Structures are given as structure tokens and as C-alpha cells.
């Protein structure tokens, strides 16, 4: 126990001159101090136990250094899913900037005859528009510049912009009735990634890492990759708020992989520093951190210990991950030639498969510049050309390797776009503003219903007319596929049992599950 009185004469009446501990702090409620004391006692017992084991030469059997064992004893959730899960891992293809549903997945044939007509007031229903189009003289209807055709046995309507994805449309479960409250990128993308439009909440991947733990302890549980931007205009910022663990322990944050020869910076040992030297250095740092933890009891110190350990393990696991030389020639046929260029969306899709194969629970690949306020026909073509084939490649690759059964693939942005043109409407040129009332997404694999289309919007894809799906319903459904009840995957913070889906009721969309 800290607080052993020292022999030297110390003059303070309330302590013996030792380092201060939580117990010495004023204003800390007695109950909390008691809790800390109990944890402290338990930890000391374990510390002595594991040190004794180490002396007995058993530490090698356990395969871990003693400090790491201690880090593991910090309060962990019960890592067992509530029921046997369909999904072991997920790959989320995040189309940042919000792809227009009109040119991609929500076919609206009646609009063709309404070119340039003003959007009926009855459809808009008094909705407040963004500052970008609220002052426009009119709201001229812009039909899709691109054609659609029914594909697959399911007969799903597929845009001509998706010649590749169209081939696997029978594997996809399309939802055309997503909606959100946020009308601007940052709050909308935060809602999508963390369930809440205010920063500070844990992201979906963090909740899964917290709830399920790792399949492969040599790699992070949650990985994020951002892709090279296909268009150099109107680029939205991404920040690590979107993959932060919020109030959960920072070890559940994503590790953001860079593209190229060094996916994680400073991972290589400096010249002359061997693996054993690195190990003993980390052991030393852990020991110091351990001493600090014993003194102040801050659980963040345990996180730091576990992060050192993760970095050490990634020193061997990441180079292997990054070496694509073992890929068969057929890989490049699937994902397309761009997959050889580090950092492209195609490369990241292939990397996502490699991560899933090695047991990474949740991989989120961001592709930006879908925010086509202007020059939409030209720009969305570039976006689809960049992403269509790799998306097809990923699904096909997972399927042929038997991984689509337990890997959930998710595709979508943060909101939809308006039926009316932002700015001047021409036959082959227009723009679309933000639209939160409806947008399209799809899921694939891990027990979702293949070849299904769920939800309907009105003729203007302005309002949902059937089977609305809020973002929190989507989240509840994703958690369900991982074996969790969204109401029961919680973490106590600020006096509430916090959860991904928040306090409003959310529903698992059972209709889209096989």
C-alpha cells in the first residue's frame, strides 16, 4: 500500500511524507475513495501474484510481461456477445460528403418529365433549406443525368455509373429510406460514425472493440483508412473525432493506417536497436508507468501501457500485412489496376480485406469528395469510376474466400441530396444541395438479406413514404449482427448508461436480416 509511514521525521500531521494519492485529495467523495482503495488492494494482490509467477519462471508461459497482465485486469466488459453473432467483423465504406441518391441508388423515373419544373411546395412541406440554396429564385427539378437498368435476379435498379457493383447487386441489401437530423457535414458525419452530432461520443468501431475485444491481438481491433481524393474541389475535412473512443478507454480508438511503405509512422526500430533492446526498453517504461499508476490510480496509465504493447506487436504484424506480394494475379483483376497505387480507394479496399482476413474487427475506409454542389454529373462520374470496381472487387473477394458469411460490408454517406438543382440547371450540368430527409445505403454479408431493397421515398426522393430507417436504427441493426442488444452495450458516463444509439428508441430492422 502507498502511505506506509516513513521512518524519517515528517512534520505534517495528516500524512507521513509519502507521495500523495487519491486518498489525500480533497473534494473527492468518500465513496469514490473507497472504490479506489478496493481496486488498489485487488491490484496489489494481483501484482504480487504475477511477480511471484515471474520468479517461478512461468511468465514466459503466460507469454506476457507482468505489467501487461495488470493492464488487462482493469475493468473490462463481459466480452461475450449476448447471442451467437452473425458478424465477426465489418468493413464500412464511408462515402464522405454524401453521394446523391438520384444518380446512384434511388431510381426516380417520373422526374424525367419534370425537368426544370419548380419543386412543389407541398413536397417540401415548409422545410428550412440550407443557406446555400435558401435564397435561390427557384428550386428547379434536376432528373438524373444517368440511366438506370434492372440487374440481377432481384431486379434491383442500378445506375449506369455502377457497371461493376451491378454484377453483385444480388448480394446487396439496399436501404433507400435512411434519414438523419443533421443537414451539414460535420454533425451528420458524427451522427453516422458516433450516433450523436456532438463530438465526444465513442464511434461505432470503438463500441465494437470495447464490447467484443480483439480476434487478433497483434493488430488493432479498429482501423481507419482515408483514401486519395479523386476530385480536388470542395474537399471535406475528416478528423479523428470520427474514430475516437470518446469516453471509452483510448485503446478503443481506431489506429489510422497511412498508405505506402510505412502504414504506421515510427514503427521501425532505429538502426542498431534490436528486438530484445526494444523489449527491455518497453518493459522499463511499463514499470515506470506502473509505479505511477499505483500512486495515482488513473486508468489512462493502463491504456498507455497497453498502447506501448500494441505498438511493439505491430512492429512484426504490420510489415507482413503491408506486403502484397502474396496476392494472386486474380486480385488485381478484381480490384482493378488502381489497387497497386497505395492510398487509392482500390488499394484501401484490398487492404481492408487483408485486415479482415487477419482478424481486425472493424475497418472503416473513407472516400471523400462526394459533396457535389456543382458540376454533379461530371464529378459523380469520377467518384463512381474511382470506387465502383474496388467495391465489386471487395465483395467478390470476400465471397470467394468464404468471408462474406461473417463479414458485414456497409456502404453509404452521411445524408442525401436535393432533387432540385443548386445553381443553374442545364441538361448536362447541375448541382445538388444537402438533404437529410432521405438517403440510400447498402449492407452486404453477415446475415443481411441479399438482393433486397428496403424502404421507399416519394417521386421526388424528398420524403420517405415507407419503412423509414433512422441512423440509430441502422446502428442497432449493425450491433445486432455482432450479437449485441444496442440497449445493453453500455458504459456508465456522466451519470448515464451511455450507448451508441442514444436515449431515443431505436429498432433493429429485422426485415433486412436473413
Amino acid at each position, binding site marked *: 500500500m502507498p502511505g506506509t509511514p516513513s521512518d524519517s521525521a515528517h512534520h505534517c500531521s495528516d500524512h507521513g511524507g509519502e507521495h500523495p494519492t487519491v486518498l489525500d485529495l480533497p473534494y473527492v467523495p468518500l465513496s469514490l475513495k473507497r472504490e479506489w482503495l478496493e481496486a488498489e488492494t485487488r491490484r496489489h494482490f494481483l501484482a504480487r501474484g504475477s511477480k511471484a509467477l515471474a520468479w517461478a519462471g512461468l511468465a514466459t508461459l503466460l507469454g506476457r510481461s507482468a505489467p501487461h497482465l495488470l493492464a488487462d485486469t482493469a475493468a473490462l466488459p463481459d466480452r461475450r456477445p449476448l*447471442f*451467437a453473432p452473425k458478424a465477426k467483423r465489418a468493413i464500412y465504406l464511408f462515402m464522405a460528403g454524401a453521394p446523391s441518391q438520384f444518380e446512384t441508388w434511388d431510381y426516380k423515373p417520373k422526374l424525367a418529365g419534370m425537368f426544370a419544373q419548380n419543386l412543389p411546395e407541398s413536397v417540401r412541406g415548409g422545410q428550412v433549406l440550407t443557406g446555400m440554396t435558401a435564397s435561390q429564385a427557384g428550386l428547379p427539378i434536376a432528373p438524373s443525368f444517368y440511366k438506370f437498368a434492372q440487374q440481377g435476379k432481384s431486379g434491383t435498379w442500378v445506375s449506369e455509373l455502377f457497371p461493376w457493383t451491378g454484377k453483385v447487386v444480388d448480394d446487396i441489401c439496399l436501404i433507400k429510406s435512411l434519414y438523419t437530423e443533421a443537414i451539414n457535414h460535420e454533425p451528420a458525419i458524427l451522427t453516422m460514425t458516433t450516433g450523436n452530432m456532438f463530438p465526444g461520443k465513442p464511434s461505432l468501431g470503438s463500441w465494437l472493440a470495447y464490447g467484443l475485444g480483439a480476434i*487478433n*491481438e497483434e493488430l488493432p481491433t479498429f482501423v481507419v483508412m482515408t483514401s486519395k481524393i479523386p476530385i480536388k474541389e470542395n474537399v471535406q475535412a475528416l478528423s479523428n473525432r470520427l474514430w475516437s473512443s470518446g469516453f471509452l478507454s483510448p485503446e478503443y480508438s481506431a489506429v489510422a493506417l497511412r498508405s505506402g511503405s510505412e502504414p504506421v509512422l515510427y514503427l521501425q526500430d532505429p538502426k542498431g536497436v534490436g528486438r530484445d533492446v526494444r523489449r527491455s526498453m518497453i518493459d522499463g517504461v511499463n514499470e515506470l508507468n506502473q509505479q505511477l499508476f499505483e500512486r495515482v490510480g488513473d486508468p489512462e496509465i493502463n491504456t498507455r501501457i497497453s498502447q506501448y504493447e500494441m505498438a511493439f506487436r505491430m512492429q512484426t504484424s504490420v510489415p507482413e500485412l503491408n506486403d502484397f506480394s502474396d496476392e494472386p494475379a486474380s486480385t488485381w483483376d478484381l480490384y482493378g489496376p488502381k489497387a497497386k497505387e497505395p492510398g487509392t480507394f482500390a488499394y484501401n479496399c484490398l487492404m481492408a480485406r487483408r485486415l479482415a482476413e487477419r482478424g481486425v474487427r472493424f475497418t472503416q475506409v473513407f472516400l471523400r469528395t462526394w459533396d457535389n454542389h456543382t458540376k454533379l454529373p461530371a464529378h459523380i462520374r469520377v467518384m463512381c469510376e474511382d470506387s465502383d470496381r474496388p467495391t465489386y472487387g471487395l465483395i467478390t473477394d470476400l465471397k470467394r474466400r468464404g468471408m462474406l458469411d461473417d463479414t458485414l460490408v456497409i456502404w453509404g454517406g452521411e445524408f442525401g441530396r436535393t432533387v432540385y438543382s443548386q445553381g443553374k440547371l442545364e441538361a448536362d450540368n447541375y448541382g445538388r444541395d444537402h438533404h437529410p430527409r432521405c438517403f440510400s445505403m447498402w449492407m452486404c454479408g453477415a446475415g443481411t438479406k441479399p438482393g433486397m431493397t428496403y424502404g421507399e421515398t416519394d417521386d421526388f426522393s424528398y420524403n420517405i413514404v415507407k419503412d423509414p430507417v433512422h441512423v440509430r436504427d441502422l446502428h442497432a441493426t449493425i450491433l445486432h449482427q455482432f450479437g*449485441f*442488444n444496442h440497449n445493453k452495450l453500455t458504459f456508465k458516463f456522466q451519470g448515464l448508461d451511455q450507448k451508441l444509439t442514444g436515449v431515443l428508441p431505436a429498432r*433493429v430492422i429485422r426485415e433486412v436480416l436473413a
Partner: protein
Amino acid sequence: MASASRGWAEPGTFADSVAPVLEHNCSKCHGATKQKAGLRLDSNAAVLRGSDDGQVVKPGDAGGSELFRRITLPPADDDFMPSGDRPPLSPAEILVLESWIAAGAPSTAAFEVARPGLAVVEPPAAPDYRPRLAEATALARTLGVRLVPRSRVPTDGLVLRTASAPANCDDEVLAKLAPIADLIVEAELARTRVTDRGMEAVGRWANLVSIDLTHTAVTSDGIARLTTLARLESLNLTSTKVDSRGLALVRKLPALREVWAFGTP
């Protein structure tokens, strides 16, 4: 919820048959110390009195009784009981409550308690792992692999997990897993050092439902040793040396639904 087919019936009373089930599963929250939702389930009268929201048992109508509805929901449902991390009632326990309510929820009179037959509609994936979880975990640690519960349902079995250190897992390890082999439902063996010899042991893992042998040295000779697996549904042979002979052999597997052979000869 798996419902057991009726095998036979035996006489029971509230005190002998029903009370122990309620005591075991419900008393922590609905007993003498705590009465969540104002509900006590520790006496016949209390059960019939119901909760703050009204009646929970409709004598004579199990299907229309809130108590019965809640214990037979999917465990993921918000309304599912027992709540929290407590395991669901067993099919036999559910039958006891169902028979009692159906008989009119008698307080002292005897009624027929249905007992599950040998054949159940949805048999459990594996025996209850709870009494042997510590043994399994210790064994796994010694062998450098992991054995983790598939879920909190104690009869959902264990996953054999090797992804952290595939090189640790070889034929010896598979043989040494014999003491807990009946608990293994999923075997994740991709990239491990297992060979045909190890499939000898795996062929005795009677409750195995899925096995992933991706990137292993297993050949058709190994597959020949797996044909005993009556419950195997999913077999991943991606990038193995299994040829057409092995793929013909898998047809013998009665429960097999999916086999993947991408990257094989």
C-alpha cells in the same frame, strides 16, 4: 427460443417444481430483497398478484401470460427476462412454467409437468460451458491459443481462436484439446501449422459446426478424416491443397451447407 418436444410428463406442485425455477432465475430482482417493477415471484400468491403493470400470469393461458412471453423472447430483446447478463431459462425450466400456467397456475394442487424428450427441435450447440470454462481457458493458455465463448448462452459452445499467433497451433495442439473438444463449435485455424495428421483429432470434435483451414497444408487426406463430423455446416478450404478427391469426400458430410475452395488445385 428452442422449444423442447414433449417427451413425458410427471406430477409436480408449485412448491416442488415451479418455486425452485423462480428462485434460481428470478429471485435476485423479484424476491424478498428487491421487487423490480413491484413484482415478487417468491410465492404463488405473489406471482398471481403481478407487477405494477398488472397481471403477469393468466391462469390457463401460458401464451397470453406476460411472464411466459418474456422468458421466451429472443435473448436480445429489451423485454427479455432474466435481464442483464443472467442466462436464459433452460428449455426444461420453461416447460415447467408453461405446464403450470396451462394447468391453471394451481397453488397447492398437483399438475402434470411436461419433461423434454430426447429429441429437441433445436438441440443446443454444445454442452454447458460454464462448469468447464476455467479448464478450457487454462488449457488454451498453456497451448498458446484461445477458447472463447461464442455468446453468453452457455450452450452456444466455444470458438477456437488462433489469429493472434497462428504459428502456435499445430497438430500437437489439436490433439491436446481433446478434454474440451466437445465444447468447440467453431475452429478458426487459418494460417496455422496444422496438417492432415491433425485432422485425425478434429474428426472427433463432434459438435464442430464450422472450420476455417485457409492457408494451411491440409490436403484431401485430411478431409477424409473430417467425414465423421455430423454437425459440420461450413468448411473453408481457401488456398489449401485439397483437390477434387477431397471435394468429393465433403459430400459425405450430412449437415454441410457451404464449402469454399478458392485457390485450391
